[in-house]
C-alpha cells in the first residue's frame, strides 16, 4: 500500500498540545514542511516564545531555544550573529510579539537581521486564558475587555505588518490566513519565501498568520474559521507588503 500522507521530517513524534480547532498545528506543519523541502532542518535553530507555542521546542525537529516573553527576536539576533550561515527563525504570538516584545521585533526588523519570524495573530492571549491582546478587534469580548474592546479607552488594535513596512531592513513581509485550504496553501508559499529570503541573505522576513483560538473565542472550530474570515481579514487585509526585488522579478 502506498503511503499518501506522513508526518513532516520537520516535526518530532511528540503530540501537539494545542486545543482542537486551533490553527497552530497547521502553521507548525507548514513551517516543518518548508524546513524539510528547503533542506534546512539540520542547519536551523528555532526560537520558541512564551504563550501557547512555548513548547514548540518539543515539536519542531531542529535545534531549539526557548526565549523569555517577547525576547525571541533578540535571542535570534544573538544566534544569527554567532552562526551567520545557519537558518534562524522565531515563532511568536501576538501578545509576545506585538505587546511585550514590540521593541525587540521593531529593532530586529530595523537592523535587517537575517532571520525569519512566524507571527501568529489570533487576536487574543491564548495560554493565559483569553485576555485582550494588542491585536484584539474593536468590540471583541475578552476576559480583560468583558464589555468588548473600547478603542477610546485602550486604543485600536495594532497592524504589525503595516507598522513594520516602513523599515528599510525588512526584506519580506506578508500577511496570510489559515481559514481555508486555499489560504493555507498561500500561507505555505509565504513562509517558504520568508525562509528563502533569509537563505539569500536579503534581510529580515516576517509572515503574519491570521489564526484561530476557538477555546478563548468561545466558538466552535468551524465558527472560528468563519469569524477569522468575516471579522479579522477586513481589519487585517491579506497582502504581501514587501518582498525582495529578485523574488518579485521571478514572480512577474
Amino acid at each position, binding site marked *: 500500500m502506498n503511503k499518501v500522507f506522513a508526518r513532516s521530517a520537520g516535526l518530532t513524534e511528540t503530540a501537539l498540545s494545542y486545543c482542537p480547532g486551533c490553527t497552530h498545528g497547521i502553521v507548525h506543519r507548514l513551517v516543518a514542511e518548508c524546513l524539510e523541502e528547503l533542506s534546512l532542518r539540520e542547519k536551523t535553530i528555532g526560537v520558541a516564545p512564551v504563550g501557547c507555542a*512555548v513548547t514548540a521546542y518539543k515539536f519542531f525537529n531542529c535545534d531549539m531555544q526557548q*526565549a523569555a516573553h517577547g525576547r525571541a527576536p533578540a535571542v535570534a539576533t*544573538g544566534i544569527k550573529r*554567532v552562526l551567520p550561515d545557519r537558518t534562524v527563525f522565531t515563532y511568536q504570538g501576538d501578545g509576545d510579539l506585538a505587546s511585550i516584545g514590540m521593541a525587540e521585533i521593531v529593532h530586529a526588523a530595523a537592523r535587517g537581521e537575517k532571520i525569519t519570524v512566524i507571527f501568529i495573530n489570533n487576536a487574543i492571549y491564548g495560554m493565559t486564558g483569553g485576555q485582550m491582546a494588542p491585536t484584539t478587534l474593536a468590540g471583541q469580548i475578552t476576559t480583560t475587555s468583558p464589555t468588548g474592546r473600547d478603542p477610546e479607552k485602550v486604543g485600536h488594535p495594532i497592524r504589525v505588518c503595516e507598522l513594520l513596512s516602513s523599515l528599510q531592513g525588512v526584506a519580506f513581509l506578508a500577511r496570510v490566513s489559515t481559514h481555508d485550504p486555499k489560504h493555507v496553501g498561500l500561507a505555505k508559499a509565504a513562509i517558504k519565501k520568508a525562509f528563502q529570503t533569509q537563505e539569500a541573505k536579503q534581510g529580515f522576513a516576517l509572515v503574519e498568520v491570521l489564526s484561530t483560538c476557538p477555546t478563548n473565542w468561545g466558538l466552535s472550530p468551524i465558527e472560528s474559521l468563519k469569524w477569522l474570515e468575516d471579522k479579522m481579514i477586513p481589519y487585517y487585509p491579506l497582502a504581501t507588503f514587501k518582498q525582495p526585488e529578485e523574488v518579485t522579478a521571478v514572480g512577474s
Partner: protein
Amino acid sequence: MSERVMMKGNEALAEGAIRAGCRFFFGYPITPQNEIPEYMSRRMPQVEGTFLQAESEVSAINMVYGAGAAGARVMTSSSSPGISLKMEGLSYLAGSEIPCLIANIQRGGPGLGGLAPSQSDYFQATKGGGHGDYHAIVLAPNSVQEMADMPGLGFVLADRYRTQVIILSDAILGQMMEPLTLPEMGFPGPVEKPWATTGAAGRPKNIINSLGLLGEELYAINLRLQEKYGRISAAEVRWEEENTADADLVVVAYGTTSRIVKSAAALARAEGQRVGLFRPLTLWPFPSEALAGLAEAGKHFLVAEMSAGQMVEDVRLAVNGKTPVALFGKLNGIIPTVREIYAVIKENCAVAKDGAA
C-alpha cells in the same frame, strides 16, 4: 613578553575579555561603563568579533542568551539601573545554564541614583537578583590589573560550570587608570560545547530551555542546579588575607573599599594596632568557612562597604555569633575616606583588644 600598559579600568576589562577569547559583545550605553562598549565597538572588528549596540538592556542580555546558547564566548556590561533591567535575562540564563559574562560597574541607587561608585548591588548580584532559586558566580576586582584578569577567570568558570559569571566592579575601578600587565592573548582556549544549538546535523536535536511545566520536570531542573551550585561552592571560593594571623580585628572589604581599607589599616598598623584585612575575590560563593575559622580563633570583625550593609549579612552568617561583627556602611553618594575608616578601625581594635584580654 608580557605587555605593561596604562589603562582605564573599563578598557582593561574589555581588552581582558577579548584576550580571553570573547568575540561577541552586546550592550547598551550607561554611565559609568560606556568605555566598555566604546572600546568593544572599535576593538571587536580587529579580532573578527562582533559588537552590537542593542535597543535596550533587556535586548542586550537576550542577545547574550542566544549567542551563548549557540556556543559563543559572549559578554555584556552595564551599570546598576541597567543591570536591574537585565535581571529577567539572568534568571533565564541560569535556568537554561548558559555560560556568559556580565560586568556591573556599580553606581549609586536606588532608582536612577547617581554616578558615584557604590556597592549596593551586592544583594542583587550574590543572591540571584531575578526570580527563582539561582546563583551567579560573582567576582570582585579591586584594581585595574584585576579588571583585565578577571574576564579570563570568569570565562573559565562560566564554561566549566555552564553558568553566568558576574564581575561586580564599581565606578572608581571602571574610571581610574593604573599600570597593568595585560593577560596573554588566547587564554582560556575554546572548549567543546556539545549541548549548544548549532543546527542538528548528524546528531539528535539540542534544546535550550528553562521551562519545566510538569512539577517533576521543574523539580529535576532545580535539583540539577543546586547540585551544581554545591560543586561551585566546594571548589571555587577565592579570597585574600593580609596580616590576619596576629590580628585582633579583621576588616572584611571587597573592591574599591578594600583599597581604602588597605591604606587605613596600614596607618593603624603603623601605630601598633593589630588589624588584618580579609578580601573576598568571589562574593558568591562566599568565603564563609575561612571567616568562620578566623571567628573560631577569636578575632573580631569590621565590615566596610559602600552600602547600608549588605555583605555584612554574609559575614554575620559565617561568624554565626561567635565574635562581634561591626559595620561601616557608607551610604551611596559619598566615597569613604581613609581617615574615617582608620578612625573606625581604631575604635573597633580597642574593643577587640579588650575582648581578647
